[in-house]
């Protein structure tokens, strides 16, 4: 048996570094806290969407063949990090992931379902997808469903595109995520079947994985911003005559938040790269990135709130806004439980590999 080694290189290219800088500056200017708050309860700012359109944010992570700039999942994740850091009220990630999924079906001649590709590419028609559709019947909550006019879903083995002429009403939530109920049976919804059988399953599986990675990246951004806010507060806030960062219980909580930040970011980038370049190698990585980002952002934004003492639970505090966003953004895809079930794929693969190597099972359990 020959050894199987892989590179383990997390370093970003200069271009990727510049992308981060560009995005961070843009969102700092265009999506400061007052813009985020003003966009609530819907959680979407049409103005900001226009900015995204004009600055080409929608096409960063699209293949050139379909009119994109040739960026991939890593670039999409980097975009997600910055969207999360700004808690930007924009439905960009769901839109781009859906564009990437549809890209394989694009043909110049005809529209996809009842959606015109150029209009979608330009962002004049907002797209989204229904990550839980494969295991839910009938109606379901759709991320960005309150602003999207077309939603990609997978039902009964078919890849379908649901469209409507009006926005679906938002389903209110504390994080003010623009989620909405979509139901294929709804008379206002038109359903077109895009693919079936193996092709549909394959497109959906990849789309679902990309959605997990993109969403994970936005959670990582929320997490990183929350960590910074908590560290800064702990450095300034005085209690009992010293800065509260001197107290080990608080200091170590800040370290634990940092651990969540770094591991979630690294894992999301690794999952993005491998899902794009070697989709058949460890397909569970997307679910792992999503599960880690979810549990990290929930426990760490909650810790970050707590580090603020009473100040943290006031709605006027920025940290409580990040916490609210985290509670909604992290669960629209079905929660960690669904991710863990997906990770189960890896158990079966590993069990198979193990059974191929000799003597493992003999050692596994002395037969009685």
């Amino acid at each position, binding site marked *: 048996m020959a050894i199987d080694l892989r590179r383990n290189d997390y370093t970003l290219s200069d271009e990727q570094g510049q992308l981060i800088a560009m995005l961070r500056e843009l969102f700092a200017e265009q999506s400061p806290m007052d813009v985020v708050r003003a966009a609530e309860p819907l959680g979407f700012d049409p103005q900001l969407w226009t900015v995204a359109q004009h600055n080409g944010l929608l096409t960063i992570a699209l293949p050139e063949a379909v009119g994109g700039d040739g960026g991939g999942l890593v670039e999409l994740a980097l975009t997600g990090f910055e969207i999360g850091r700004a808690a930007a009220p924009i439905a960009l990630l769901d839109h781009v992931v859906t564009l990437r999924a549809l890209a394989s079906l694009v043909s110049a001649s005809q529209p996809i379902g009842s959606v015109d590709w150029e209009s979608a590419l330009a962002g004049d028609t907002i797209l989204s997808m229904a990550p*839980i559709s494969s*295991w*839910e*019947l009938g*109606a379901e*909550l759709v991320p960005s469903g309150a602003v999207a006019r077309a939603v990609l879903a997978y039902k009964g083995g078919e890849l379908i595109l649901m469209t409507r002429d009006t926005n679906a*009403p938002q*389903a*209110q*939530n*504390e*994080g003010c*995520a623009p*989620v909405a*109920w979509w139901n294929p049976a709804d008379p206002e919804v038109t359903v077109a079947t895009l693919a079936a059988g193996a092709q549909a399953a394959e497109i959906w599986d990849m789309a679902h994985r990309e959605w997990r990675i993109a969403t994970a990246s936005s959670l990582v951004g929320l997490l990183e911003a929350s960590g910074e806010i908590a560290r800064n507060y702990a450095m300034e806030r*005085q*209690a*009992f005559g010293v800065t509260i960062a*001197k*107290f*080990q*219980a*608080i200091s170590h909580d800040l370290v634990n938040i940092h651990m969540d930040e770094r591991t979630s970011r690294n894992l999301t980038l690794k999952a993005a790269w491998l899902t794009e370049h070697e989709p058949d190698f460890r397909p569970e990585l997307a679910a792992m990135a999503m599960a880690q980002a979810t549990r990290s952002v*929930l*426990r760490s934004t*909650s810790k970050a*709130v*707590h580090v603020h*003492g*009473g*100040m*943290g*639970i*006031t*709605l*006027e505090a920025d940290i*409580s806004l990040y*916490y*609210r966003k985290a*509670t*909604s953004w992290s*669960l*629209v*895809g*079905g*929660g*960690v*439980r*669904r991710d863990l079930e997906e990770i189960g794929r890896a158990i079966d693969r590993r069990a198979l590999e193990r059974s191929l190597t000799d003597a493992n099972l003999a050692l596994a359990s002395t037969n009685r």
Partner: protein
Amino acid sequence: MDFSRLELTSEQSAFEQEIRDLLEAHWTPNPAHIALDHDRSPEAVRLAMAKRGWVHPKQKPEAGGAGLGEVEEEIITELFNEYFIPNNASSDLLIPTLERFGSDWLKANVLPGIRTGELTTCLGYSEPDNGSDIAAAKTRAVQDGDEWVINGQKMWTTWGNESDYVFLLARTGPIEQKHRTLTMFLVPMDAPGVEASPVWILGGGRTNVTFYSDVRISDDYRIGGINEGWSVMSEPLATEHGAGVVTEGVVPINGSMGAGFSRVFSKLIDGAIDWAASRTSADGRSRLEDPLVRIALAEAMLDLEVCWNAEGELGKPMAAEALMANADRLADMAAPEGILDFGVDGSIAAGIIASERQHAPGSAVYGGTTEIYRNNIARGLGLPRPY
């Protein structure tokens, strides 16, 4: 030991019915109202209770109470819980302070109303620049003849907008001397210069920041000696923390806050069970049969039972942390609908899962952060005060 069922006497059964009638008369139960551990009792209910001496039921009638026992006290608590009515009207913790340290004038003119519950109180200890570090208070009280002039602001004055008086801890000497230059006052909230402005918190609840601008009060409103405010304050605060909870073997052992959070926790679990029982998975089975849902619910029930067994000062921090952890775990099980607010199309469990995730973080700071509690518990164990 005794955990047996209490056979109510006919008087106690009648008492239960009286309370039910009173609550039915003054309140419409609202299953979506879950901030029971935070909100103040509705005024109509409180006044009706006060008239009967039921706000402080165990106090003697001549002390504004009804001379009842722990059983009646627990009947009241349980029924408020059953009817989803906040039960925060008591000034239990502060009455002994007033009796012991209050001026004769206060005892004659204010204490009686506070005893019955017709008059309500709130706490003015923390300030914007100091939460846990109460001894760093900056709000000043300067003596001017037989009056005091108060200037400053207080934070976390919960119920400050609906209380008659505030227990105000003010600086009456050099701030460098920290807890040795603090004095306690009972300030009327309607005194000129007092203003409570709302501070909204996660989950939609309200607390207040209260401003004191040249508030003039007579020396009659002073509680305890000048510069002795720290000891005046410490005693009820210790009780609030649940230290030395003495019971007659009926009420919970986990302290008032611990028990309050645990009752909300219990409603959270009930809501999650209702949700699971009412939903079917894609495979057509009830979510109640889903092994992962069952384990999550079983762990929640276990955590709740543990909270009821967390005595005294342990009760509050443990209940707060269990509430936060389980609200998240149950929300994950019920995802994505678990994030929807009550009343929204498709929302579940009366929205309690979603709203508890917002309320719960507050439970870890009310009345002192979980770190402060642990510092106190450590000292109770004979450990040195941690850095």
